[in-house]
């Protein structure tokens, strides 16, 4: 079990290196190997399902003991399990989807980078050591930058790649500054697990550095300006990975590191972060309504939906915090499915402009059904996973932040507006397709690769408790740690109180 962790993390990368030894022209072999590796990773990651809420697969090897202690410490526990499974599931779908994207001669590189990207994400979600976490955090930049600049083939994509690199690079460096400031006090990357005392001011700054990096990566308003171009001009498999999985990295960082390490600072930052969360929720929704480009529309809806998770975490309510993983997993599935499906649409009509095409359901009814399920899940239709996450979060936040909850509810209504607009203008009405477009029905491969995502969306929508029962104790413990430490700090730091009790 313990040794399986490394297999799961590195199998995609190893598969990628195997690809490099296959001739570039042998596309069937390349595809076969890549898909086998990705699916095998997914199947292996399912082996961790039985670990439950108290057990954990934990592997820790001495690594660096110079000026500080760092371990090669990877772990799959209740907190990390569903991030890992989400990554392997979406990863397998994206690798399969990648078969029909990009320039044929560059397929090998495309698959290699996607697989490498999957390894960096798996490494991030299993890292239990801060140095390891940061290494994967920064390494993620490389495959995305290269995929975006090299494989979309358009000038806009190349420009988007620079935006992505500089913005996320800046976020990463701020995080690095925060981490080193912390480590130069405690001389260990092996956190949490080390007890330490920081002075309150330093803790405030360090948490701020973490928060900014996480806000950029998610992204949240006003750190999102890299997102629309990146999501719009990326090839569909890449954007499905970035939006479906990579956007969870920052929130995972909060749950696994920032909140347990700096509970006091988290509370003093909460008022500001709550405002940003609500702004993200509303801004994303309004921007999505006004958007004419299908992928940009989903990008903004993503901004709005992930705002809910920021809101949930900093409302510090037990229900909302413990539903955040459900919401994250659900958003990952929905966003990946939507972007993959829109990729299929774009492949057929060669445009993303909503005004340029419509009525595809006549020729491609199954594509319409698939897109219907995904967009209904995104707008929060009960019975699908999007509803379960949002509903639980709002129930929780209502108890601590009623005003912000009301504002967030507005965005729930707006979600219906933009998702219905997306679906209706692409699928309903009379058929309008640009000249030279050939609308064909979904191929079996396309259905098979999206179907698991939709199945998971329906499953979690019908039975959200299945996932929630497998995550709570971790998140609960974190929350109680927060409340207890806030209680003790009430006398010492009155300004903290306002953050928690308002």
């Amino acid at each position, binding site marked *: 079990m313990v040794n399986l962790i490394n297999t799961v993390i590195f199998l995609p990368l190893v598969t990628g290196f195997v690809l490099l030894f296959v001739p570039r022209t042998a596309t069937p072999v390349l595809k076969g190997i890549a898909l086998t590796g990705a699916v095998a990773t997914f199947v292996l990651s399912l082996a961790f399902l039985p670990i439950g809420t108290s057990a954990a697969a934990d592997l820790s090897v001495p690594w660096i003991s110079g*000026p500080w202690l760092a371990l090669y410490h990877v772990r799959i526990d209740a907190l990390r399990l569903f991030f890992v499974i989400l990554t392997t599931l979406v990863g397998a779908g994206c690798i399969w989807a990648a078969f029909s994207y990009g320039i044929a001669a*560059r397929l090998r590189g495309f698959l290699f980078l996607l697989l490498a990207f999957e390894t960096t994400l798996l490494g991030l979600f299993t890292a239990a050591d801060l140095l390891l976490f940061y290494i994967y955090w920064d390494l993620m930049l*490389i495959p995305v930058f290269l995929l975006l600049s090299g494989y979309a083939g358009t000038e806009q994509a190349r420009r988007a*790649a620079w935006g992505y690199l500089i913005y996320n690079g800046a976020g990463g460096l701020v995080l*690095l500054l925060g981490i*080193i*400031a912390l480590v130069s006090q405690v001389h260990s990357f092996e956190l949490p697990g080390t007890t330490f005392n920081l002075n309150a001011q330093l803790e405030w700054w360090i948490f701020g550095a973490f928060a900014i990096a996480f806000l950029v990566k998610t992204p949240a308003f006003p750190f999102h300006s890299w997102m629309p171009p990146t999501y719009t001009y990326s090839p569909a498999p890449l954007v499905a990975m970035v939006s479906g999985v990579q956007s969870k990295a920052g929130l995972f960082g909060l749950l696994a590191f920032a909140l347990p390490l700096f509970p006091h600072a988290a509370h003093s930052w909460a008022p500001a972060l709550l405002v940003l969360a609500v702004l993200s929720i509303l801004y994303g929704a309004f921007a999505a309504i006004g958007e004419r480009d299908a992928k940009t529309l989903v990008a903004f809806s993503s901004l709005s939906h992930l705002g809910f998770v920021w809101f949930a975490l900093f409302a510090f309510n037990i229900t909302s915090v413990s539903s955040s993983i459900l919401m994250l997993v659900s958003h990952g599935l929905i966003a990946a499915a939507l972007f993959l499906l829109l990729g299929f649409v774009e492949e057929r009509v060669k445009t993303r402009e909503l005004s340029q095409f419509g009525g595809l359901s006549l020729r491609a009814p199954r594509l319409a059904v698939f897109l219907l399920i995904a967009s209904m899940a995104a707008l929060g239709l009960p019975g699908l996973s999007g509803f379960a996450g949002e509903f639980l979060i709002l129930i929780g936040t209502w108890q601590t932040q009623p005003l912000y909850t009301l504002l967030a509810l507005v965005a729930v209504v707006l979600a219906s507006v933009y998702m219905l607009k997306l679906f209706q203008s692409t699928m309903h009405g009379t058929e309008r397709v640009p000249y030279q477009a050939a609308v064909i029905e979904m191929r079996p491969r396309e259905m098979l690769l999206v179907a698991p995502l939709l199945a998971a969306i329906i499953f979690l929508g019908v039975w959200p408790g299945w996932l929630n029962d497998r995550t709570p104790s971790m998140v609960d413990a974190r929350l109680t740690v927060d409340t207890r430490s806030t209680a003790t700090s009430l006398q010492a730091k009155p300004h903290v109180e306002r953050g928690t009790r308002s």
Partner: protein
Amino acid sequence: MPAGVTISWPVLAPIVALTSGGLLIMLVDLLSRKVDRAVLFGIGVASCVTAFAAMLPLYGREEVTLGGAFASDRFSWTFDALLLLTLAITFLLSSLRKAEDGGNAGAYGALLIFCTIGGMVMAGANNLIIIFLGIEQLSLALYVLAGTGFPREASQEAALKYVLLGSLASGFLIFGSALLYGASGGISLAPLAAAAANPSGLFVAGFALFLVGLAFKLALVPFHTWAPDVYEGSPLAVTGFMAVAVKVAAFAVLARVVYVVAGHDSVALIPLWILAILSMLVGNLGAIRQRNLKRLLGYSSIAQAGYVIVALSGVGSGGLTTMLFYLTAYALTTLGAFGVMALLGDGSDSYAELDSYRGLLFRRPLPAAAMALFFFSLAGIPATAGFYGKILLLQQALSGGPWGLAMAVTLVFGTLVSFYVYGKVVWYMYAYSEGEAALPTGNALAPWIAVVAGALGTIVFGILPQIFYASQPFLTAAAK
């Protein structure tokens, strides 16, 4: 020789070995004008190996010889090893092009060796006169080497610029040393420390001039203007040698002066911190617009020198370990990058222009991947030696008070800018499938050795930095 001065030959053995290697090259070249260049450079590499072997017994045992003028200690061992590595790789890179050595391989090889000896003298120098001697020996040989590509006008220009500005720097150094002697009453570093504790006006002036002289040699901003031109004009292998060996040797002197004379919190070092901040900014920002790779690496080396100074800002001898780690990482990546250029160039000048790297990944995947690795390491992307070096630097800076904090923030900002600078090179190799007319095609063995050595070192020290600590037990024990 005055009575009482003892000479410890083991301490001098590496220098003696190198010197004999240099003389042997000249002799062989003199006796037979037809001797192959490979033989001469082979002798050069062999003398590097011999000198390294002569160094091994010294390791871990600090010793001062020649009446306190020359030391073999923690300041010198790793610097010496780096210098020898650089020299060996420079020989490998020089073996390709006839024009690189102006057709006179014997003199070229001997000069490279004498230059390195100058660097080793600097690394061990324990008084002002020996420091100056080492710097002069290094510089004089290098002035000539910069001009050895003389069929190209740019090389002559580089040599002339280097001579003029370098001599000016030497003037500052010797004048500063004279004032320091006046202020402290001694030429060795120990009395200087006493004078630094209670500085007189004379001491301040002398120390300032001394720092200016060193800053010239290190190409720190605002004393950097010669560097991009000289880097661009000099023959490729000499540029690589210059970018690494000169910095390593000058940092050896700087580290010793900072640790022995000043102390990391000394007010006297504030100008040094300002130089570091300026270098990080100007080096990275200046590199943005460069389209010539040698010039780009020239600016990059300015920024990297700024980073290295950050290592001196923190408390304790952990700073020395940090400096050595970063310099090792810098040496490996820079030499590796020059190795790729030499490999591809194979006698032409196309390797230096960024445009000829368009789509390189699809024509020459391995050299392109190696180049990407070296540039990622210079940028400080994780899993490379450059990354681990950078987090060590940040930790030093954050333990170094307000100036340390300022340097940490500048370092982070400079790194962000460098993402663009180094990313652009990778981008050229990768984002376009079409190459320009001049396709680099070289595939010789010698530069491949440099590339593979650089790549291995970059990855191994990046993923397992513990290996570096294990090789420096003397330093790390002192750091704890």
